[in-house]
């Protein structure tokens, strides 16, 4: 039938089905929150934000704390929520400064090692690795091996997320 389905998806506890269930539940909640009759740009934007956060949160929750990136994303979502609720920014700033310190220690250490061997490629490698750290949740505090492993898993989850969202949009537009 559809090339997207494979035997693994029949498993109700597969990542795809866990994400789908959670995300659909979140969409129902968002849909029920407000009668969406008017479509002022501000309301449209808010709804878009809520859906995006729901998608990321559903994916991170489906992975739970088994991965560094999902833990980092859940932490970020939670702290953003609590910042909006109350002014508990002190906790997040302490955490951020320790992450930045460990990141500076790690990248300067890596740069030292890379500069002893010659070649543009090593320097390009470190530059790209730093860019990657910014894209993967929690990447700033990871060493290189962890970063590469987490990136692979993060990409797999992102592609699942996109697959499911596309399918949902297709069905909603029928």
């Amino acid at each position: 039938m559809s090339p997207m389905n494979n035997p693994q998806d029949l498993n109700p506890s597969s990542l795809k089905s866990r994400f789908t269930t959670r995300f659909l539940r979140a969409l129902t909640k968002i849909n029920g929150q407000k009668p969406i009759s008017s479509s002022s740009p501000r309301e449209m934007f808010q709804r878009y934000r809520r859906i995006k956060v729901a998608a990321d949160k559903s994916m991170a929750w489906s992975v739970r704390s088994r991965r560094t990136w999902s833990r980092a994303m859940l932490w970020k979502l939670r702290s953003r929520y609590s910042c909006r609720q109350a002014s508990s920014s002190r906790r997040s700033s302490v955490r951020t400064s320790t992450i930045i310190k460990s990141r500076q220690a790690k990248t300067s250490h890596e740069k030292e090692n890379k500069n002893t061997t010659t070649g543009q490629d090593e320097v390009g490698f470190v530059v790209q690795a730093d860019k990657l750290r910014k894209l993967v949740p929690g990447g700033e505090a990871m060493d290189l091996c962890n970063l590469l492993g987490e990136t692979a898993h993060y990409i797999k989850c992102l592609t699942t997320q996109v697959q499911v969202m596309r399918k949902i949009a297709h069905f909603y537009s029928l």
Partner: protein
Amino acid sequence: MSSRRSRSRQSDVSRITDHQITDLISKLQQLIPELRGRRSDEVSASKVLQETCNYIRSLHREVDDLSDRLSQLLASTDTDSAQAAIIRSLLM
């Protein structure tokens, strides 16, 4: 004598780590549609990382676009029957 031993141990450690890293990078290469078909010795490590960054950025953009599309569709659908159909098709 001791300095020579410690130096060789250091290079042993870095050889193991380099091999690990090369392995992880080739695994990453297989996940990226741009680079999937090519042999791992053809593509430099920094190129793999660069394409990985581009791929993740494009996936983020897709999630954004789909969220936007869903926010527009959400208003105008009968979600319950749609959801039943979605679950049936995705999980069976």
